[in-house]
């Protein structure tokens, strides 16, 4: 549902890295630097969101997984009774 053509987390991260490097080199014009900063902030926001979403999803999945494992363990306990 989420991202079809949206660049992935790593791609965005690389873009952010490039951006930071560009800013560190200092050859940028002031206005360009500010624009890059804005892009960087947007990227970071987007990355943060992506990460939070991923974490949320992972948490949900982990909850499901735990439940499944618990169920399995109960079965496993039955096993141990033998």
């Amino acid at each position, binding site marked *: 549902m989420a991202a079809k053509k949206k660049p992935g*987390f790593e791609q965005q*991260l690389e873009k*952010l*890295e490039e951006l*930071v490097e560009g*800013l*560190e080199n*200092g050859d*940028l014009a*002031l206005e360009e*630097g500010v624009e890059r*900063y804005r892009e*960087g*902030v947007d990227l*970071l926001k987007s*990355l*943060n969101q992506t*990460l939070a979403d*991923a*974490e949320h999803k*992972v948490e949900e*999945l*982990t909850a499901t*997984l*735990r439940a*499944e*494992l618990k169920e*399995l*363990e109960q*079965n*496993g306990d*039955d*096993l141990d*009774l*033998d």
Partner: protein
Amino acid sequence: MSDRERAPEGRRILNVSGLLEAGRSVLESEIGPVWVEAEVFEYRGPHRGSGHRYFKLRDDNASMSAILWRGVADRALSSELRDGQKVLVRGSFDIYAARGTLSFVLDRVEDRGTGNLAQRFEEMKRKLQMEGLFDPERKLVIPERVHQVVLITGADSAAEADVLHVFQKQPNPVHVLVRHARVQGEGAVPDLLAALKEAASISPDLILLSRGGGSMEDLWAFNEEALVRAVAACEIPIISAVGHEVDFSLCDFAADERAITPTAAAQRIVAPWVEGIEQIQVLGKRLSRCAGQLTLEARSALRHQADLVGVMRRFLREKKARFERGMQSFTAQHPAQRLERQALRLRHAEQRLMAGVEGRLHMGRVRLQRQARGLASASPKTAIGLHKAGLSKASARLNAGNPEGLLNRGYALVKVEGQDGFLRDSKAAPEGTAIHIQLAKGDLRARVE
């Protein structure tokens, strides 16, 4: 032993070889050579290379590796051992150090004999064996995990209870279809044949042919040729579990696999499922461990890039510094000095201008004053004075030459009235002539008498 010296705390530390060696010596001293009653299991005959026999010995609940060295076998065996054969053996434990495996090494082998039925059993067995009915190539592969199994067993039998107990006790998705059949006595064979047919008709993954233990007579139906052939011919894999571990039936040989007991057979089916569950649990745990890792790396990577604020601050600071440098050099160029210089030059010109014009005026004045003074001194007043003096002298001389001076001495000047010239002859003045007499002071008018 020398290990002890390296362990000052008193801990005894062994290496693997040492431990195994210790085990071997304990086994040797504590157990030594013993007699064991057991059933041969997984017997494969002489090893192709060495001629030694490697197999297993077991009872209902346990099994162990056994080795019959070639030399011992040659001496102790009249014929090759076979699976299921009950034997009385003597031997002792040995540990194969390279693998750490425990083996029972035999030095004596004695067969535990069979009865009358055994004779028939052996004949039939030999016959069917000759036909190749028991050939391993004929055997169907038992599926790794069985989903559907048809259990053919006696109604309310211990075997059924045992099997179902296993299925119920352990988690598994196996669908068990039970086909009760008569398993001994009259009509047992046809019923079993019918059961086989029915079972095969629904194409389960496996058929489990099972019966509890009993005497050879009790179990004899499973040695009947018709059933044995039907078992061998069945297209569905069959596991045979007839009697106890010591009890062999020909069905066992004809089946695709033999289980020593119904319980063992059921476990054989359930075990992969249990293993599967364990596998799932392990994988599940590994999976859940990955979960944290997944976002953790992403997060740390993101955090690593999060110094954007600092980077931007440095960026701005540099820009600002350059601006400030520019500004300082500009403010150092304040035009006040320039203006002051120009003002000074202007003031100088101004002073010179004023001094110049005043000098010019002064010069004019000085020249004019000089001429004025010259004019004043060249005034004609002196000349006038001189003329005055000259004139007064001339005036004196004139007075001196004044003919009227005679009158002062008493002379008088007489003129005939109305005539010019003085009267020098009286004749010129007859009587009655009016004459004018001028004296030194005053005039007289008279008439000649």
